[in-house]
């Protein structure tokens, strides 16, 4: 893939590292704004604060997963396990908090730690065992799906004994301060995670290697960089972010639902790609991913609020995803 895209002399670049990025960001953003305006005209109920908050809330989990997927995808890999890893981490939090009755902080750290550990496993499969990322993370996806069911005893674990757990995602610190802006904490966390990931990508060594590995892994290796170690770190970081998503969804549902998660990987990857990150690796932005996740959330919500028949919702979603990306393409060409 990469060769093909690298070399089209006509196709302009979209790297974060370069300078033309601000421009590209603005464009994906334009598609989002167009959707928002369109839906506002189509339904008077769309542009309510409460509906906007619902959209943000529904983007939060997918957004966090998409941020995790972005990191791996920029290295030229792929992570199919984000959805079930999220669930696995939620279950781990459930075991720690509800079954073992430990304090909230332990549960949160445990879930994130479990995520990092699983990510490290995927990373080890990819680097040390030389398994293609697609297979390594597909295997992880299946293993984690099974393990979530086993550990939880195939039933949801509720967090009723952990007061305040549901506030992690549902509460609104911002709303407490500015009542007119009841942004749920889950959304706040999404933005914090995105900001942190963006910082890592643009300002740290790890981020630089993420791009470099995706651009030309062999050249990085021949520069004397221990590519295996960095790659493992990247998968672990992505795993930790999935752990955060696990906490978010568990808090939102006030329970760890062990069967949930499969299928979420595709949506996360879709958000990443809509956001302009190339599956060939080497280029991409977190802001793009965020906008990609929002586009998907707005689209689904808007069609629902318009009360479009469900089978047509699917058709229209498919068409608009293609059109949104197409709009980006032609605008970029100019």
């Amino acid at each position, binding site marked *: 893939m990469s060769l093909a895209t690298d070399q089209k002399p006509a196709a302009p670049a979209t790297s974060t590292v370069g300078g033309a990025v601000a421009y590209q960001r603005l464009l994906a953003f334009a598609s989002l704004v167009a959707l928002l305006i369109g839906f506002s005209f189509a339904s008077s109920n769309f542009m309510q604060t409460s509906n906007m908050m*619902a959209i943000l809330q529904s983007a939060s989990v997918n957004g966090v997963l998409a941020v995790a997927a972005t990191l791996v995808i920029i290295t030229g890999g792929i992570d199919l396990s984000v959805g079930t890893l999220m669930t696995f981490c939620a279950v781990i939090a459930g075991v720690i908090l509800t079954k073992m009755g430990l304090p909230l902080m332990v549960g949160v750290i445990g879930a994130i730690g479990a995520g990092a550990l699983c990510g490290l496993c995927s990373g080890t499969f990819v680097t040390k065992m030389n398994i293609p990322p697609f297979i390594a993370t597909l295997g992880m996806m299946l293993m984690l799906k099974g393990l979530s069911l086993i550990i939880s005893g195939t039933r949801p674990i509720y967090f009723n004994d952990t007061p305040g757990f549901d506030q992690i995602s549902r509460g609104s610190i911002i709303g407490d301060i500015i009542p007119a802006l009841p942004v749920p904490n889950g959304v706040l966390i999404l933005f914090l995670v995105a900001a942190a990931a963006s910082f890592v990508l643009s300002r740290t060594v790890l981020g630089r290697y993420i791009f470099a590995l995706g651009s030309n892994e062999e050249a990085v290796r021949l520069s004397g960089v221990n590519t295996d170690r960095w790659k493992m770190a990247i998968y672990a970081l992505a795993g930790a972010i999935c752990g955060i998503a696990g906490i978010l969804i568990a808090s939102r549902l006030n329970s760890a639902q062990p069967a949930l998660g499969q299928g979420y990987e595709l949506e996360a990857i879709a958000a990443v790609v809509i956001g302009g990150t190339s599956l060939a690796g080497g280029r991409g932005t977190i802001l793009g991913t965020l906008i990609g996740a929002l586009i998907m959330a707005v689209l689904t919500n808007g069609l629902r*609020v318009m009360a479009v028949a469900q089978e047509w919702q699917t058709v229209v979603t498919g068409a608009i995803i293609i059109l949104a990306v197409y709009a980006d393409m032609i605008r970029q060409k100019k």
Partner: protein
Amino acid sequence: QDEIYIPLISKGFQHQFWQAVQLGAERAAEEFDVRITFEGPDNETMVDRQMDMLAAALANNPAAIGFAALDSQAAIPLLRQANEAGIPVIAFDSGVDSDIPLSTATTDNVAAAALAADRMAELIGGSGQVAVVAHDQTSRTGIDRRDGFVNRIAEAYPDIEVVTIQYGQGDHLRSTEVATAILIANPDLAGIFGTNEGSAIGVVNAANELGTEGVVIIGYDSGAAQMQAIRDGVMAGAITQNPVGIGYETVRAAVAALNGEELPEIIDTGFYYYDASNIDDPEIAAVLYD
């Protein structure tokens, strides 16, 4: 405008059962002159997606809401929001652990599956090996039907052994695959219970493909293929709920609530066992769909 809008958030959408529920709801909508929409996630694991649907439904300031909870606890904050806005909530298909829903239109899946177990025991002569092809390991209906069947066998029929329970996601093809493996691994099997339409059809397909004879197949729900299999004698019989009734009762109850009427806590829409002998009875035919 003074149109009355009642969105129904279901557990599923594409499957025949949910389509029949929608049909019933639409009938009631026409009868009572209200507007409904009917929506459900792709599969019964997507609890958070159902929350998103509920949230979008609330954004439209509905008159009332019909809701089939995938997980009753998860929905509570949104239901509370509805309650505070004075929007009556009617639960359907399975209950919500909360006093917010004014009424629940439902089938007792546990009892229905126990009835299937009784019929199975009868047909295989009270002893032998049976297996279950279930549609889901974690959804409420999946658990209730599996446990209803298995527990009844364990309690009442000590000579019957449930040798394996496997899951086919209610997908016709995957259930066929699952049932094939079960039939091959258990040559002495006396009966199989399929816990929804896709599972039951999967068992029938597997038996057809392997040329298996003498295994008692009991299904769940209806649909053209299942009814045909019963008529042809490939399937011994099946449990049917009254999905059209569930949909209808849900909307009717919502309208009643809007009119300030008192509602019963549970509206039991009932279930029946049907086989070749009674499939054309008017009472049964009324609750079957194809």
